[in-house]
């Protein structure tokens, strides 16, 4: 293959010019850059590369902003979708801090002395998440809520040295899928239990409960705690952090591992990612915990500082005997969550939680009264609930979108004609009224 000549093009991201490159080649003592690649089998060198030519920033922005306008976004539409990601408040201070180069463009804090910012934030995150869930310790975050839950199941098996994972039938079905992806190759077994009156055998490693559950209902953690205790299993709870402003936290019920999706804590919704998984446990299990952990220590002069710690759990030290393969995780989003928790604060967090609760219950009460609509499930809920519709939810959602409303999740495949509606602090009374009014058009 002849060497393709692209030297006419100078990228704005690459400082060195052809004449500097020549100087460097001279210093190295080779004739061309190509010579540096001589270890690559010649016949595979210089493949064709069918990628468009470079594009100017003006064109890029023009085209991509136009493409973005093809999407219906949450700034211009009311949103009643949830099921694992929610349209929550992200304080205005989050983005300016997050995008500071020092946070945005630094690596994992291996060099503690040059990374105290990232490290202290991680310690703050661990502290606040522990407080929120009322657990002993938290790590610095996992990939997302689903993988946290899956890793918790693996950890429970390690801790108990058992291989049976029990899962309530009320957890998010996608979370269930992810647990399978993670657990089955390791020869662990997964069993489903009915949320109402599950019977947990004494061979169980753990019971996995979502709080509130996939349908928005508040599970009875006290009951599940008794059952796991009786079985010598661990209680693993995936909890919605925003609900923790008003609901009794899993730690108070004696949960052994608590996970959660951190997106609600001010992380942009961004079509599903990047988010951050929450992960907490009891002190005695900390050496079985996956993920990064930051600890407080001091420097040679006695000043307080922070470092990555308990690294012998991790893959870069322990390799195949590590507690997980996770390396790069979601530190930046943990920062977003930390800023949000600080800004919403103690009283604000209760208030935020209650705003969700009251608005959701208000919306539910109005929808319940609509002819043809009903709320098929019983029990307390937080900010999400199932609605049975007089017709196909996807038909309803199309009509809603025409009114600039993004409707609930169509769950008709598991519950015929049902839709899962979430209401948050971002939904105003007029939005709720508009939702109800449009739904009413479908009433028989």
């Amino acid at each position, binding site marked *: 293959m002849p060497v393709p000549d692209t030297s006419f093009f100078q990228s704005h991201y690459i400082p060195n010019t052809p004449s500097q490159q020549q100087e460097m080649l001279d210093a190295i003592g080779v004739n061309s850059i190509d010579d*540096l690649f001589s270890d690559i089998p010649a016949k595979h060198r210089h493949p064709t590369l069918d990628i468009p030519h470079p594009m100017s920033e003006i064109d890029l922005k023009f085209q*991509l902003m136009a493409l973005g306008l093809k999407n219906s976004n949450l700034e211009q539409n009311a949103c009643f979708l949830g099921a694992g*990601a929610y349209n929550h408040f992200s304080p205005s201070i989050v983005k300016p801090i997050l995008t500071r180069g020092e946070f945005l*463009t630094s*690596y994992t804090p291996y060099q503690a002395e040059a990374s105290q910012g990232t490290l202290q934030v991680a310690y703050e995150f661990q*502290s606040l998440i522990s407080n929120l869930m009322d657990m002993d310790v938290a790590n610095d975050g996992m990939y997302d809520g689903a993988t946290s839950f899956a890793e918790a199941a693996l950890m429970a098996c390690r801790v108990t040295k058992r291989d049976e994972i029990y899962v309530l039938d009320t957890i998010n079905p996608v979370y269930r899928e992810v647990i399978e992806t993670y657990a089955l190759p390791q020869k662990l077994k997964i069993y489903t239990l009915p949320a109402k009156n599950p019977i947990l055998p004494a061979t169980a490693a753990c019971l996995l409960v979502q709080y509130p559950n996939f349908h928005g209902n508040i599970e009875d953690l006290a009951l599940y705690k008794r059952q796991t205790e009786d079985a010598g299993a661990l209680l693993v709870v995936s909890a919605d952090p925003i609900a923790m402003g008003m609901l009794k936290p899993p730690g108070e019920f004696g949960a052994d591992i608590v996970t959660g999706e951190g997106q609600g804590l001010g992380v942009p919704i961004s079509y599903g990612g990047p988010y951050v998984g929450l992960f907490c446990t009891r002190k005695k299990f900390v050496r079985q915990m996956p993920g990064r952990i930051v600890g407080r220590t001091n420097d040679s002069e006695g000043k307080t500082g922070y470092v990555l710690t308990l690294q012998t759990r991790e893959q870069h030290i322990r390799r195949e005997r590590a507690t997980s393969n996770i390396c790069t995780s979601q530190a930046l989003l943990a920062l977003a969550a930390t800023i949000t928790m600080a800004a919403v604060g103690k009283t604000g967090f209760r208030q935020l939680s209650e705003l969700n609760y009251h608005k959701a219950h208000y919306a539910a009460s109005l929808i319940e009264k609509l002819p043809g609509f009903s709320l098929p499930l019983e029990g307390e809920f937080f900010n999400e609930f199932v609605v049975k519709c007089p017709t196909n939810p996807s038909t309803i959602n199309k009509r809603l979108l025409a009114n600039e409303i993004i409707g609930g999740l169509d769950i008709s495949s598991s519950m015929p004609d049902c839709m899962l509606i979430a209401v948050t602090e971002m939904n105003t009374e007029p939005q709720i009224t508009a939702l109800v009014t449009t739904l009413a058009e479908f009433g028989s």
Partner: protein
Amino acid sequence: MNNIHAFQRKLLMERSVPGRIGSILPDLDVPKQNLPRPELLRDNLDFPELSEPEIVRYFTNLSRLNFSIDTNFYPLGSCTMKYNPKINDEIAFSPGYAGLHPNQPIDEVQGALTILYRLQGYLREITGMSGVSLAPLAGAQGELAGVLMMRRYLMDNGQEQRLKMLIPDSAHGTNPASAKMAGFNVVSVPTDDSGNTNLEALRAEATNDLAGIMITLPSTLGLFDKNIVEICNIIHQAGGLVYADGANMNALLGQVKIGDLGFDVMHLNLHKTFSTPHGGGGPGAGPVAVKSILEPYLPAPIIGLNQEPNEKHYYLESPNKSIGKLAAFHGNFGVLVRAYVYIRSLGDYGLKQISENAVLNANYIKEKLKGYYNLPFDRNCMHEVVFSATKHKDKGVNGLSISKRLLDYGFHAPTMYFPLTVDEALLIEPTETESKETLDLFIETMKSIDQEAQSQPDLVHDAPHNTPIRRLDEAKAAREPDLRWSRPEEP
């Protein structure tokens, strides 16, 4: 000055003052509803109470304690700390992308799916593979996806006994950890003296329980294994599959397609090669790419395209034998958007120049420093070069001290003590976005440190001196773990 330092580093909970608020929330604009049963309600939440100005100043000052690409040369080997273009952030943060709910019906998000679909195509083209899934959330998850596909494929072909996964001793720790999570048994393969895989050892492992091999290309020694095609052949002939850890693709962009060399499956680290910001430890994205035999196993979702007469229509699908879902949604979308913009911005010409300059820069450093630090493999390196800081051991100066001393000069340290196979390893990856002037300054500094190590070893040994904090006691941190703030006991 110490009290200012102490004040700046006080924790949120230590700054908390009862009654302060950090944001105003809206009033409830609907009628109050009945609360749940009291047993379900929380009575206390130990959370900070701070005003907005304090929070902004606190986090802003914390950020200033970090080194970063925007402020420092950061030659951290194996991490590809290159410049992260701001246009990528701007587009990813715009409401047309950052404001989409992952459960929206596909008709509402065609713009987003267009980007994902095209990105799949570009990554196929760059890797020379036939299928790509963007689902994995980081490199390690890409590895897990890759080895899970291998496992499923072998099982589907009646080869469930193939559980031995070979991994070179220089590999990143995620490789063995991922292989293990997929149910494989890990066997280490040694590297030979010239830095290539020891072929003899490899052949000896080519037994019928062989599942395959995970090879990092170029290796974490910064070397392109000269026998790579041969390795692929040996494994294939033994009935195994070949996995490429593509975290080091910055060396190879446009120079060679991994697929052409014989690999069956690989992952890419978009947060390295495709310049999405590292965020102090994530988010990343670790797409997997496969040959056609593995396509049916790709993790969900894959973005498909209906070529309808008038309008294009993108959709999400799950391949028929998919290893399943790796996470709740569709991958780290915000990261994927950035990578897409990056590829379009550089285009075909630019992508090739990345690898050319990344390799040139590394070789330049290698050449200039090799008289000063031990160079275990004196051959052309790829995008990074590994030195061995053994020269000053007698003076009590090791790789750690040299690294810390670099911090004093405003340079981030190289990767230390990795790969594990090189004594006192210092793995230096300059990347293509650094100028010759910066490299020259770094080279001069490394030479000065060599000098210092000889003439003033304590200066190096006790480094760092100029960082916000001196050398930290890591042993204490691990011995007496202090992992969270807790309320001081009432006296």
